[in-house]
C-alpha cells in the first residue's frame, strides 16, 4: 500500500473500535428512548405514594441496567459478525492496545465526572424539598448523559488520534 493510499484509508475508514463505539451509542439511544417513553407512560398511568415511587424507580433502574447490558453484548456480537463478513478481516474484538486502553480510561473519567455532577445535583434537589421523582429523573438523565458524553468523547479521541 502506497503512502497516498494509506493516507486516504486513514482519513476515510473507521477502525473496529470506532465502529464498536458508534454501535454501542446507537443501541444506547434506542434503549434509552424506549425506556424513557415506557417509564413516562407507566408513571402517568399510576398514582404513587412515596414508598411506591421508590419501588417504581428502583425496579425501573434495575431493569434498564439489565436490558442495556444484554443488548450491548448482542450488538457487539452482531458487529463482530457483520464486520468479518463485510471487511473479510478477522479482527479479534477483544484486542485492545495501550492507546485503546488510555482512550477508554479518558472516556470513563469524563463519564464519571458528568455522573458525579448529576448525582450531586439530584441530592441537592432532594435537599431543597423536591419530590423523589424529580431526583430520580435527574439521576437518570445524567446517567444517560454520562453514557452519551463518554461515547462522543471516546469517538473524538479516536478521530483525533489520541
Amino acid at each position: 500500500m502506497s503512502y497516498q493510499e494509506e493516507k486516504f484509508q486513514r482519513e476515510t475508514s473507521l477502525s473496529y473500535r470506532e465502529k464498536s463505539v458508534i454501535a454501542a451509542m446507537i443501541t444506547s439511544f434506542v434503549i434509552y428512548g424506549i425506556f424513557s417513553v415506557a417509564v413516562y407512560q407507566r408513571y402517568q398511568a399510576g398514582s404513587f405514594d412515596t414508598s411506591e415511587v421508590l419501588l417504581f424507580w428502583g425496579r425501573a433502574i434495575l431493569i434498564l441496567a439489565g436490558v442495556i447490558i444484554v443488548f450491548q453484548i448482542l450488538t457487539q456480537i452482531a458487529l463482530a459478525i457483520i464486520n468479518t463478513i463485510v471487511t473479510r478481516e478477522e479482527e479479534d474484538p477483544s484486542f485492545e492496545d495501550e492507546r485503546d486502553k488510555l482512550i477508554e480510561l479518558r472516556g470513563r473519567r469524563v463519564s464519571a465526572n458528568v455522573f458525579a455532577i448529576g448525582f450531586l445535583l439530584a441530592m441537592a434537589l432532594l435537599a431543597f424539598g423536591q419530590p423523589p421523582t424529580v431526583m430520580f429523573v435527574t439521576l437518570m438523565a445524567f446517567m444517560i448523559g454520562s453514557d452519551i458524553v463518554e461515547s462522543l468523547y471516546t469517538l473524538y479521541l479516536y478521530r483525533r488520534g489520541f
Partner: protein
Amino acid sequence: MATNPISNNIRKLRFYHDEMTQKELADRVGVTRQTIVAIENAKYSPSLELAFRIAHVFGAPLEEVFAYNPKDDSF
C-alpha cells in the same frame, strides 16, 4: 493544542525497510494500525516498551526512531 515534544522517523524507516506497511509494523509490535498512524503523526507518544519494540523491528537505536524536542515541551 500543544505540540508533541516527541517526534519520530517511523515513516522514513518504513520506507527504508522495503516500504513496510503500517499494518505490518502494527502486527510486529502488537498494536493496531491506527495506533501506528497516531504515533507517525505525533498525535500519540507510545509507552517506553512500545517505543523499544518499534526500534527493535527497524534494528535501530531508540534515538534514531524517536527524538525529544525540549523547546516543544510545556511541562
